[in-house]
């Protein structure tokens, strides 16, 4: 048993988008059962990092390592990463016209299990998960994200997570565009999913989701790097004082 107990870890990740480096060497280790949050101003590279880790073709990881339970993610295509247990809840989920939520989820589950789910079991599971997330049953037969409101899209992302039960969930700005009731529903969904066998990495601009989903660690991302790490209190300080003071700290350090 020489394998490290780290569940999900990435080391010195560099990401390029259209030839421009947007993530400049970040490292993180996440253990089973932990919740981490990456916070940062717009354009700091947080979404690029999560997209790159999932395997988005437009986000090229130019160097670094990423492992899930010891398996090298960077050798895998996006679908292999998903089947290995990685999940990304998208900031802007795309519409897939003509493909119903139910058909899509069935296809996704089939790809994970290697065989079709029993139809009645699948219906029961879908119905229960939808009800927990206050998603109207009619969504099962609606086309995926087609004409959904921002909040509906986010709920359906969490629905996908709760159906697929990934080992490691990256949640990219899942709180944006949600009113307070929807925020609570989504946070409940995340908390229901969370257990000591999986882990969560929340990527967020604002602190408000963290009132409901309590992080163990908070990392501040600026200009493509982690500028500061701390406990949940760091999120509260950012909420009060904004990001400017972190930037000043970084500059001071650089001058020393």
């Amino acid at each position, binding site marked *: 048993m020489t394998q490290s107990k780290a569940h999900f870890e990435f080391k010195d990740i560099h990401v390029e988008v259209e030839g421009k480096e947007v993530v400049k060497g970040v490292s993180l280790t996440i253990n089973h059962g932990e919740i981490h949050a990456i916070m940062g101003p717009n354009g700091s590279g947080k979404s690029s990092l999560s997209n790159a880790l999932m*395997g988005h*073709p*437009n986000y090229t990881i130019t160097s670094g390592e990423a492992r899930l339970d010891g398996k090298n993610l960077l050798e895998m*295509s996006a679908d292999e990463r998903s089947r290995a247990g990685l999940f990304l809840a*998208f900031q802007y989920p795309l519409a897939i016209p003509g493909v119903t939520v139910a058909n*899509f989820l069935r*296809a*996704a589950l089939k790809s994970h299990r290697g065989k079709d789910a029993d139809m009645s079991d699948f219906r029961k599971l879908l119905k229960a998960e939808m009800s927990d997330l206050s998603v109207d049953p009619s969504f099962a037969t609606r086309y995926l994200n087609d004409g959904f409101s921002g909040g509906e899209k986010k709920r359906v992302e969490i629905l996908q997570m709760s159906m697929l039960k990934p080992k490691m969930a990256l949640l990219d700005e899942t709180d944006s565009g949600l009113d307070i009731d929807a925020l609570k529903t989504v946070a409940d969904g995340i908390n229901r999913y969370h257990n000591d066998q999986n882990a969560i990495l929340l990527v967020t601009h604002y602190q408000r989701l963290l009132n409901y989903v309590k992080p163990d660690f908070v990392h501040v991302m600026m200009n493509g790097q982690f500028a500061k790490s701390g406990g949940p209190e760091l999120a509260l300080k950012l909420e009060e004082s904004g990001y400017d003071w972190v930037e000043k700290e970084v500059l001071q350090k650089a001058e020393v």
Partner: protein
Amino acid sequence: MSDAIKQQNESLSTLNADYAAKYGFHDPVDYFHKGARGLNHEVVEMISRMKKEPRWMAERRHEALDIFYSKPMPKWGNQQALGEIDFENIYYFMKPIERQQDNWDDVPEYIKKTFDRLGIPEAEQKFLGGVSAQYESEVVYHSMKEDLKKQGIVFLDMDSGLREREDIVKKFFGTIIPSTDNKFAALNTAVWSGGSFIYVPPGVNVTVPLQAYFRINAENMGQFERTLIIADKGSRVHYIEGCTAPVYSTDSLHSAVVELIALDDAYIRYTTIQNWSRNIFNLVTKRATVHKNATVEWVDGNLGSRLTMKYPCIQLVGEGARGEVLSVAFAGVDQHQDAGAKMIHAAPNTSSRITSKSISKDNGRASYRGLVKIHKNAVNSKVSVECDALLIGDDARSDTYPTMEIDSEKVRVEHEARVSKVAEEQLFYLTSRGLTEDDARLLIVNGFMEPFTKELPLEYAVELNRLIELEMEGSIG
């Protein structure tokens, strides 16, 4: 080009690649009658004589041939491809067997095998009210359920229709599409053979679909079926046609004329699933006249062929009449689908909807060509046109040629046109949930077609999805 798109092209480039194995076979046939190649008045006279037609029909044919000679080729579509049609190299009439059968067992073995392979008898047993199977120029097998006959529903091949119901045929034949309409309508009128004749009496609802299947077997064959459907007042009928042909190196011609008449309060749905081999010129004229509060729907699926030019037309001539054209075209390697719709509003309170979806891949080309005309008297009319094109690969091409002629005020017209590519972003979204790229692509293409497939009877929707799925699966490894 990214790897994802490249792979996508590769897997879709084989779409329908097993056409040759599935539909592209041909039978060696000892024809009862096989005329000579080429077109002239003697050929026309021979066809009419063999069919023992009344003289008025023979005269119609001769007159139409002269119109065919005098008319220029269409000035739209694909001029270059049209120019390659050699009218003198085509067989205009091939009669496979002496007489049509209504008992499957009496159909010659080789023809039976063909239609067995195409799944026709199975479909008949499962969900159809009547079946007509045309092989080359004539219908070789025809049957209809007894209970439909008892309701007075007439479903015959057109040749029998002319013999048995000459009164109705004479009254309506060529009234919706006259020979003078276009060069290919004239050609069809001159040499027509086979097709369907349907008459539904007032108030009768045909609850199960009637189907005709058109099979071209010979090389350089010309198939010219003629279909006339009359839905009398308050009746309802759904007619389905399917078409395939063998794969040959030289071209064949399919040029049908279809006329529909929906009298007051009647409803006709006409569904086409054509899956021609790549050597077929498919030049078809389809038109419907819709009377007061009646409805006609063309559900038109165009797969295959070298060049298709087809624009189902609906003339809304009665107050409150409704028309709908829902079409899908798939243009693969070296194929051109020039398809669309014509909607003529000629009465008040009429409404129509055109939904055109096309998929082009490799160097395939799909064009939407549409006309919406609202006459001055058609007040309070509503029109909606939606064109949606999906491009796969960098060489695929899609064009839209919409024409609107609005001569009336107080009408509502909506027009929407979209062109999209199977986007990397969509592929990434689906693959990030565990689907392989091939599965993701299949899901996106099926989703794009969904507004069409959901309108098909379940068996056809399943077949269409299966066809696409098989082709995509075949591309792995």
